[in-house]
């Protein structure tokens, strides 16, 4: 046996190691240094915010002003990639709030699903003053059973970006009003695609055949006032508009007018950089991406017009993407969290500042009268491109993603794959997809 003194040392060492081991768990317990504020006081304390990197860039533009207005609130912004954010939120909610942020940024597409988990705080009273100040189509996904659970931020009004130089090379007009007249309907678009292909070799639209994420279809469907579900929540993947839209994309692909690249990969960006693709059906935030990191060197070569219309319809725009901010119910500092959200999203100058910084298009209607919208946009050859989107924003059809969006999106992607890769007829593939969605949601 060990000598007594050595035994004591051994015992103490073991004890210390064990204790440090246990202190590793649950170390997230209350790191808030200051207590949340009481009624009447200005909100104070620590607020943790989750958002992806584009969100950080946006909110950073406002942080100086925020610190002046709320000197007692310490904001800890944690950058979380979009795909991880939902898992983190779900884990945080199911573990009773451990390590959960006070403010979470959520894409509109997943807002419904997150609200249905019951983990977000009811902020109906706080958002009431803003109901009429924000674009109507933003509220659908933020609400459930008459209560509001998120504050809308940006929207994605969809327009048709086009390359002036490619159009000119094909002998076509390149000024926005003339291009808009040229591409009045989707049939016109198809016919123009042929001219561009023949004269310049460029494709009209980038559509992935191998790994399509469904967003091309979604933009065109939203333009027609629907997405995946009807007003009662029943899936509509196999209805007439859906088949027609899917077949339109198929027509473009079969005719060779599309660039077969996967979205969000380098080959797709290259297509935009070197003029291999003539147009982009994209939201205003996508224009922001084009300008800042996808194809900054093509500045001046673009223009933007409203979307071509479908037969019998006047709708010229849709919504793609957009986000909101919400407060998890487990947050211990909801007052300061709301102060942050209201400052960032509820004030016209905050929204304009963020719009200028990262092209996140405000849903606050008052913003559209800001002179920034009528400035010439050098990226679009001096066109008042922001005004185009401001006008489009007011016409966005009122459509909801709904909480079953992820399932419908997955089943649509499969149907599209079958249609494009296997040669299944669109109506058959969509019917299968619709049945699949129906059997899985409730």
């Amino acid at each position, binding site marked *: *046996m060990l000598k*007594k003194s050595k035994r004591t040392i051994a015992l103490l060492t073991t004890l210390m190691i064990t204790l440090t081991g246990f202190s590793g768990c649950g170390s997230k317990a209350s790191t808030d240094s200051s207590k949340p504020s009481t009624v009447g006081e200005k909100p104070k304390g620590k607020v943790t915010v989750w958002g992806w990197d584009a969100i950080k860039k946006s909110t950073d533009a406002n942080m100086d002003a925020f610190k002046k207005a709320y000197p007692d609130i310490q904001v800890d912004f944690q950058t979380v990639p979009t795909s991880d954010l*939902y*898992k983190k939120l*779900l884990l945080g*909610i*199911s573990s009773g709030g451990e390590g959960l942020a006070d403010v979470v940024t959520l894409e509109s597409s997943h807002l419904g*699903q997150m609200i*249905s*988990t*019951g*983990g977000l705080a009811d902020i109906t009273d706080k958002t009431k003053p803003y109901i009429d100040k924000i674009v109507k189509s933003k509220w659908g996904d933020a609400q459930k059973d008459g209560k509001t659970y998120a504050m809308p931020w940006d929207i994605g009004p969809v327009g048709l970006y086009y390359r002036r130089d490619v159009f000119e090379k094909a002998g076509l007009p390149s000024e926005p009003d003339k291009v808009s007249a040229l591409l009045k309907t989707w049939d016109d678009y198809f016919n123009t695609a042929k001219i561009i292909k023949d004269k310049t070799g460029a494709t009209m639209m980038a559509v992935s*055949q*191998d*790994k399509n994420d469904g967003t091309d279809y979604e933009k065109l469907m939203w333009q027609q006032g629907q997405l995946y579900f009807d007003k009662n929540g029943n899936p509509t993947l196999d209805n007439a508009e859906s088949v027609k839209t899917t077949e339109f994309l198929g027509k473009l692909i079969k005719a060779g007018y599309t*660039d*077969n*690249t*996967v979205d969000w*990969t*380098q*080959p797709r960006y*290259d297509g935009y950089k070197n003029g291999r693709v003539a147009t982009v059906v994209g939201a205003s935030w996508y224009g922001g991406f084009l300008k800042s990191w996808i194809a900054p060197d093509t500045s001046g070569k673009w223009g933007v017009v409203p979307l071509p219309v479908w037969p019998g319809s006047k709708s010229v725009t849709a919504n793609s993407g957009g986000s909101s901010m919400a407060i998890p119910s487990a947050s211990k500092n909801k007052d300061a969290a709301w102060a942050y959200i209201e400052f960032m999203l509820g004030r016209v100058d905050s929204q304009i500042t963020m719009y200028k910084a990262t092209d996140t298009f405000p849903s606050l209607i008052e913003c559209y009268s800001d002179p920034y919208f009528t400035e010439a946009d050098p990226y679009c050859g001096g066109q008042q491109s922001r005004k185009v989107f401001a006008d489009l924003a007011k016409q966005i059809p009122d459509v909801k993603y709904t909480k079953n969006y*992820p*399932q419908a999106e*997955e089943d649509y*992607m*499969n149907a599209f*794959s*079958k249609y494009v*890769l*296997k040669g299944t007829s669109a109506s058959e593939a969509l019917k299968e997809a619709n049945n699949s969605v129906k059997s*899985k949601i409730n």
Partner: protein
Amino acid sequence: MQLSNKAWRFKRNIAPYIFIAPFFILFSIFMLYPILFSFRISLTKWDGMGTMQWVGFNNYVKLLSDPIFIQSIKNGIIMFLMYVPIMILLALIFAVILNNPNLLFKKVFRSIIFIPNVTSVVAVALVFSLAFDTKYGFINGILSSIGIKPIAWVGSVFGSRFMISTLVLWRWVGYNMILMLSGLQSISEGLYEAAAIDGAGPIRRFFSITVPLMRPVILFCSILSTLGTFGLFTEPLLLTNGGPFYMTTSTVLYIYNESFVHLRMGYASSIAYVYFILMLIFTLIQFKISSLSEK
């Protein structure tokens, strides 16, 4: 320190249990409890945070006729056949070559073959997906320069499975080779010498001595590869997202999607349990085949 006889004997008898207790306590909390709780979840309908809704064995019944689940099992079997036999053979051949005492730079070759195993799966998968891009990837570039039409890798069933199998083979052949190398150490040189004296050439020696005596290691590698193939996650997620139309969805990827994308925890848990039973069956089958071939 004076202890009475009884106290000392008690302490001596109980000491082993105290030493292994920390492991078992942690095991019970972090592995046993979740395993049992998971079974409970599989009998309910649950989104992970609301209330659990009891549904009995409904999830399991649904599973039996779930085309995606059945497809994932088929995918596992097909992809296993696509790369595992070749990989194990290659690993064994590399091991035999590297076991040669006369070979120079043995350690360099070993490292080169093994390094893929320690690279980041995500980084490699991203590079592979760029290389295999249908229009702009360099693999198709090389093929077209020798006159072969570009193959739609991600866009075809065979192409996507081939992509994933290639990536997994490249990654794991080194690992299996190391296992084989250690197995080769247990084969005595004398056997090879005796066979050589009797006139057996190197290939005959390989198939008559090396392969039979390596059976336990080959079995081990095969079982690991089975579990690995059905449990593929990062590669299908990043390269093909389980597509096209679920043709590269592994069972584990399916479980992940059901639980974390669609919040169907109950159903996902039932898939996990059936997956466990299936893996057990496949493992036992391989044991049986191995012992049968012994005769």
